[in-house]
């Protein structure tokens, strides 16, 4: 775990590699939200499959720089039908973000590098599909199945 990993919750650690335009990730997010786990989110945008994935990853990081990472995370995964720039600005306004700063931050090199770093760590860990969850160092590709959910529900 890195110092700047995005982490929330208490319980067994689940590291998730996800693509914000991926419907399976949205489903996994709903399932994990119910569980008493400590979640760490890492970006794994697959742009050839999801053209907006990297833009969204950058937007999420930019929201994080204004302290609204998980709010934007929930917003994006909660409605994957509105992902164009005007929709992102609207989401920012709703979350009380400074839209000008958001737009500058999401195009910054620092944010791009941050997302690439997550992606590379996923590649090194053998991630080949989204979502992929790591629990106790073991990879679980795809939407978490019943046995994993039961195990994590404590």
């Amino acid at each position, binding site marked *: 775990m890195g110092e700047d990993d995005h982490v929330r919750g208490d319980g067994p650690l689940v590291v998730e590699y996800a693509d914000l335009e991926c419907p399976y990730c949205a489903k996994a997010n709903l399932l994990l939200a119910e569980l008493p786990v400590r979640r760490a989110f890492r970006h794994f*945008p*697959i*742009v*050839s*499959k999801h*053209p907006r994935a990297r833009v969204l990853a950058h937007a999420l990081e930019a929201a994080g720089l204004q302290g609204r990472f998980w709010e934007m995370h929930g917003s994006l995964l909660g409605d994957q039908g509105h992902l164009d720039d005007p929709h992102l600005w609207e989401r920012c306004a709703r979350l009380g973000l400074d839209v000008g700063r958001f737009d500058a931050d999401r195009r910054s090199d620092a944010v791009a590098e941050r997302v690439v770093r997550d*992606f590379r760590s996923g*590649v*090194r*860990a*053998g*991630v*080949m*599909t989204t979502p992929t969850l790591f629990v106790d160092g073991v990879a679980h590709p795809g939407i978490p199945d019943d046995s994993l959910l039961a195990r994590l529900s404590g």
Partner: protein
Amino acid sequence: MIEAGARAPDFSLPDQDGDTVSLKDLEGQYSVLAFFPAAFSPVCTDQLSVYEEVLPELRARDAAVYGISVDGAFALKAFQASIGTTIPLLSDFHPKGEVAQAYGVWVPERGVATRALVLIDPDLSVRWTYRPPSPLEIPGANLIFDALDAVAA
């Protein structure tokens, strides 16, 4: 399956645009042949999508990736467009599976290549191979980087 150290078996196949790609074209670079059973199966879609994302890093290490299946060139063209990949897809369609057979990845009872990776040296010998225990298991891009690291070591 063909083993590391062997000469890479010669081949000449049409890509998705009908242009011929031959073994000798791979001279001077590291080449990853990614055999996959069939276009449009969800599993290989993810495999090539992730390889697509790491192409710039592979290119920086003089490595290129080629997908190979027994699908026809027109089907591979449609598949390439549908997953938005730039990875060339080679059609081992006629005589069907000839190259898969030469590389020892042919599955006769199903009439397709199994999922496998073959890393070919700039001098056209086989450097490394990987065949997952099941074709449903996707070889991670990390395996390709590990194999290239081993070459550099």
